[in-house]
């Protein structure tokens, strides 16, 4: 690994403005005793508004674990997460549910959509979890579906959609509530290269156009060119890499 542990470098961002997202010394140990698995070891990173970063690493290295903790789905064993000044690790279960609904957009590795809701309803559903006015929500859902090239598929349920279409609906769902942070887990795993590129390009555009912060987990090096910075994770150790090409596996 060419890079040193980059805590000092990533914690301070340009201009001294605190970064939107700060991950401090996060450790995650699954289980206990001799079956304990250390999935994350003192991981630290910070990502700014309007940044789209990649999280690279082989299978089982702790990528999903890290973004789950960042997104308020999983409690870390130690360490802390701050998003826009909020200490995520200090929130109660109820507050975390709201936090996920309002501030985080998640695109999961699999099973992203509610099977009995249409594409449009999948988007509208998450709006219903917040105080967004109904008419505004409908307008926004239609606009997102349009931008994602899904206007014609809005009334289809997930099983009538292709893998790429489903992935795009999930992206729309993640963006629907105008979250500060968009977390994407392996968006291209189920897609061929061309479609994968298309989806990631789209994701980048949506994040950049809307001034969001995005973290994309991938183990596909070719997708890295669409991101601003690259973090690599190996056996639970997180590092910031300058040049993505050195992160190959």
């Amino acid at each position, binding site marked *: 690994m060419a890079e040193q542990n980059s805590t000092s470098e990533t914690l301070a961002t340009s201009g001294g403005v605190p970064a939107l997202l700060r991950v401090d010394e996060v450790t995650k140990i699954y289980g206990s005793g001799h079956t304990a698995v250390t999935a994350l070891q003192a991981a630290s990173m910070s990502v700014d508004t309007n940044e789209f970063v990649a999280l690279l690493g082989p299978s089982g290295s702790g990528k999903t674990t890290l973004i789950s903790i960042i997104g308020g*789905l999983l409690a870390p064993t130690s360490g802390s997460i701050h998003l826009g000044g909020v200490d995520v690790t200090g929130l109660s279960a109820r507050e975390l*549910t709201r936090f996920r*609904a309002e501030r985080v957009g*998640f695109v999961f590795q699999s099973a992203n959509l*509610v099977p009995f809701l249409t594409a449009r309803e999948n988007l509208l*559903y998450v709006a*219903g979890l917040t105080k967004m006015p109904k008419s505004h929500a409908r307008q926004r859902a239609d606009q997102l579906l349009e931008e994602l090239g899904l206007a014609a598929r809005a009334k289809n349920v997930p099983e009538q959609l292709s893998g790429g279409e489903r992935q795009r609906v999930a992206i729309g769902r993640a963006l629907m509530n105008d979250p500060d942070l968009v977390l994407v887990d392996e968006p291209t795993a189920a897609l061929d290269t061309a479609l994968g590129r298309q989806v990631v390009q789209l994701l980048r555009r949506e994040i950049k156009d809307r001034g969001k912060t995005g973290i994309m987990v991938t183990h596909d090096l070719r997708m890295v060119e669409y991101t601003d910075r690259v973090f690599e994770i190996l056996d639970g150790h997180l590092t910031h890499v300058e040049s993505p090409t050195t992160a190959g596996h």
Partner: protein
Amino acid sequence: MVFLALTEMRRAKLRFGLLTGAVALLVFLVLLLTTLSGALVGALTGALEGLRADGIVYSDSARDNIAASRLAPETVALVAAVPGVQEAAGVGTLTSGGRVDAESVDFQVFGVDAAGPGSPSGLTEGRLAEAVGEAAVDGDVAIGQVIVLDPSGVELTVVGLLRGAQFNALPTAYTTLDTYDEVVTASFPGLPFVPVNAVAFTVTQDADLSAVVSAISDAVPEVTAYSLTDAVALIPGIESISQSFGILVGLTFIIGIVVIGFFFLILTVQKLRAFTLLRAIGTGSGRLATSVSVQIAIVVLLASVIALGLTLLAVEGLNTGLPVSINVSTVIGTIVAVLVFSLLAGLLSVRRIMRIDPASAVGAR
């Protein structure tokens, strides 16, 4: 979440339709059994239950059975003299063969005083018997028809129709005490006097019924008094019939609840992935629990409407020989009970939902 609940049901019409159908059949069974048992018990007890009396007096030897009770006519005055008794009237009854338009029908004939506490309630048409040879009848006759009793040969003209006044599942004919005397003397010539079977009484407004009941038993020799409710409950066979039907209804009810509870648990387990996803994207578990409860409520209410329709059809169409009628409060009670217990059974699903770890939505697991 009503939207989630309704949308899912719309998208899975077959699944929810089948469930609703199954629940409807079970509720139907419960309603039909309750209605029929009510009708059967009513046919056995209606005459007694319908008396405008607070209590009734039998002879000691009768063992709670009006048909086996014999009282001298003077007993009426003795009962009336007991403090707390407002009014007392003799009731005579016997089972008699009879013919209506050459068709043989058995009747339970009652001799009562139309104005007194022994008179029946449930008059739907016409009036009660006032003169000798008249009768108000709960049975398959029309006003103006003539019933010829066998073997006495006494003729009764139907002047009124009653409902819910059958006895021992027999049609009843309520005549005056004088007509009753005629029937008895003609059937059993040579009797020194015509006994009454019972004395029906009412109590004064401020009297305590149970106190008056014991006072009568104490004051009048060789009789036992009962409150009307007790007398009805003591009719031979009533208890076991009510109990048997109670067990049938209860079992069907429990099976229905278990079906609903397990079905929704299965549905919940099948949808665990979707529910986990919903939790992960910020749905509170309370919302999911509400969604399941809304679905249960809809299924039960829909099923109840169908079951009610089926019950009405069955009551119309089934010829049981009993005067069957739907008891509104029983129906509402049954439906409310099914709803409440189904929601309780839904707690199985809710508990499962509460245990969902939203973190398991991530990754390929």
